[in-house]
């Protein structure tokens, strides 16, 4: 009898606790519609987190997927129509200036506490903020890093031959000159190996790769925010000597790559590394993850990672001279910036939507996502990169250390360079893409190409309103308003 009473009380207690634990906070009957690009990248992260969130709060999450290149127009038309089509939107930070007028601010409760501090500062204080308001939450980290073939680099015969030819040891390149030397050294078409792989195709994410080259010469540590535009006058900086040098090297890299490199998008870069055709490459973290996966790659186990090469000369746009440094200055480039999640102001379920976002980006859920292949979530929290064990399921120990080290060092670097974010973003990048592809095809010289881009950028700035664009640019670079 006593046992029966005890058991039934225990059962009642457990079920009571269970019932109380369910639906916390209670969103039963609420369906959140989240817009994302077609899976699996990002969409699967949303879906996985969504099904967990549904168990926790009794709400529902419906992920709607659109092709990547149509996501922007789809979101713009939804936002400007004022309908509550979406409760959560995921998008590229470069588009945020065009969206900020339509977004709801992040609740203050989310902006404090241990989880908030865990986000790397460059995301937390710069990327997610616009005009003093936090309007979106990073759900993915993005920075360009360097990938190389460990087996090729550590082969003694290669090391000897390299030292004989170039006079220094074959190692992770510290400057872009070394990067190009290595590419030249491994350019062996008859053996099916080529030097490097980068994106060069118009419409294939090419300009981010160009920016990565140029950042080392134009992101001056003493003059923050001067990479793309003059932060005082909004004159385009994109045709100064630092940029021209970056373009020249970018063009040189295209000649030391597999044939048809001029038609490469980032996808082909991954394929070239994973297929063993390139000795080195730069790009997002996906390259490392894909190349290390034995199911997808021929070089798994031999994937090395590092920060992007730097430079010991940076162009000073004020003096018109090259400033020289004794130590190499690294300017890792936060290409693309990392997917953001936000809540449109027209949504009728904002509280639930922000709750979902908070859950999605919590350290535990996002940490799992970061190591799950196919979610497209790259590290952005300090906790992501500290836990080596999580990663060893995918990488070998050495690969994991180098990969995480590269990600963390890049994001925390003193001279990290932010990507461009401006209203009318696509207008600026379209002329850049066109001129880049012309320069790559040899139809114009680098200086001519960049002069054309600068002229058009200045014209666009005037058309959109120079003061408004200046304020936006300063905000995007984390500079105080004038």
């Amino acid at each position, binding site marked *: 009898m006593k046992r029966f009473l005890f058991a039934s009380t225990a059962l009642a207690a457990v079920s009571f606790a269970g019932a109380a634990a369910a639906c916390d906070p209670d969103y039963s009957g609420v369906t959140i519609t989240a817009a994302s690009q077609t899976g699996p990248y990002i969409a699967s992260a949303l879906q996985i987190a969504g099904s967990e969130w549904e168990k926790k709060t009794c709400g529902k999450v419906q992920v709607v997927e659109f092709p990547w290149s149509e996501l922007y127009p789809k979101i713009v038309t939804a936002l400007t129509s004022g309908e509550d089509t979406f409760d959560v939107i995921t998008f590229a930070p470069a588009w945020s200036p*065009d969206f900020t007028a339509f977004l709801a601010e992040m609740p203050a409760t989310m902006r404090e506490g241990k989880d908030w501090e865990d986000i790397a500062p460059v995301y937390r204080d710069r990327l997610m903020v616009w005009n003093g308001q936090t309007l979106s939450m990073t759900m993915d980290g993005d920075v360009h890093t360097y990938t190389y073939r460990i087996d090729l680099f550590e082969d003694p015969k290669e090391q000897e031959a390299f030292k004989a030819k170039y006079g220094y040891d074959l190692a992770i390149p510290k400057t872009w000159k070394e990067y190009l030397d290595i590419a030249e050294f491994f350019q062996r078409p008859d053996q099916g190996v080529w030097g490097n792989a980068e994106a060069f195709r118009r*419409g*294939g994410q090419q300009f981010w790769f160009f920016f990565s080259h140029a950042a080392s010469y134009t992101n001056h540590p003493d003059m923050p925010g001067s990479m793309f535009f003059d932060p005082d006058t909004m004159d385009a900086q994109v045709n100064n000597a630092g940029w021209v040098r970056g373009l020249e090297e970018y063009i040189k890299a295209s000649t030391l790559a597999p044939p048809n490199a001029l*038609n490469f998008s980032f996808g082909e870069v991954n394929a070239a590394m994973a297929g063993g*055709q390139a000795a080195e490459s730069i790009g997002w973290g996906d390259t490392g993850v894909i190349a290390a996966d034995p199911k997808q790659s021929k070089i798994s186990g031999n994937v090395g990672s590092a920060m992007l090469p730097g430079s010991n000369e940076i162009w000073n746009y004020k003096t018109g001279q090259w400033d020289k440094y004794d130590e190499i200055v690294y300017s890792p480039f936060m290409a693309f910036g990392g997917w953001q999640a936000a809540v449109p102001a027209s949504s009728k379920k904002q509280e639930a939507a922000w709750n979902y976002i908070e859950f999605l980006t919590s350290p535990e859920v996002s940490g799992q996502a970061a190591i799950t292949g196919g979610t497209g979530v790259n590290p952005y929290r300090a906790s992501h990169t500290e836990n080596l064990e999580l990663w060893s399921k995918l990488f070998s120990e050495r690969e994991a250390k180098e990969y995480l080290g590269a990600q963390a060092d890049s994001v925390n670097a003193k001279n990290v360079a932010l990507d461009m974010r401006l209203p*009318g973003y*696509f207008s600026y990048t379209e002329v850049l*893409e*066109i001129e880049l*592809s012309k320069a790559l095809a040899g139809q114009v010289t680098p200086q001519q190409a960049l002069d054309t881009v600068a002229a058009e950028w200045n014209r666009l700035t005037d058309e959109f309103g120079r003061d408004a664009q200046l304020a936006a640019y300063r905000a995007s670079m984390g500079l105080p308003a004038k």
Partner: protein
Amino acid sequence: MTRHDPIKYVFIWPALIVVLAISIFPLIYSLTTSFMSFRLVPPTPPRFVGLDNYWSLLQNERFWQVTRTTSLIAFVSVALQYAIGFAVALALNARVPGERLFRVGFLLPMLVAPVAVALIARQIFNPTMGPLNEFMATLGFPNLPFLTQTSWALGAIITVEVWQWTPFVILMLLAGLQTLPDDVYEAAALENASPWQQFWGITFPMMMPISAAVVFIRLIESYKIIDTVFVMTGGGPGISTETLTLFAYQEGFKKFNLGYTSALSFLFLIVITIIGLVYLAILKPYIARAR
């Protein structure tokens, strides 16, 4: 034949109403915005600017270049589609062995979504992962710049268009061939006319109306090509393979420069209408003769 039967209205009005109702607003909207400077992002209030959009387009070298490129792709690919399509349709109609299998097989490319065709084409043209390069290398031409040099890229795009749309021509011409009356051919056979004479003397003229209709549709549809170019070359190098619809897409859906894009759409419409009218005027006597 002309009849005056009031039931003719019942026949035509449903189609008329549907088309009018759906197409009138886009037309009005495009027309009104084409006279305004109107950007959706950054949000700027629309401003009436009269014909400014049109003038700046007509003076924009990119507009003319894009029109030339699109016309080139359209005319060359449609000409090839017609020639090959007619030949194949004749062969199928003449009950060549294996006709039934061919008939279904030849139709397939037309049924694939254009965006899928473009993605497949990109795979095949890829030098390291695609079969075409391997094939050409065995013939002694390795690493042709299929997608990276303008003239090759245009050829690649035209090839893909021909691959995808010749089935349309085959289908329509075959249906037309099957409705040709037997008696004329019997008479010709009695006179010992050779197949070649039969073709030029009977088949081709009698097929004129359907040929003209098919080529016309293919032409106007070809002018709207976008997926193939977007996926294969992105419009590059520079803008040398960019087509009208791709140009409109960049302006309208990436930059949301709606006023400019509407003006572009109307100019586009005018270009195609002129081509259409000229085409029909040239062919009118031949069609009338066939009827």
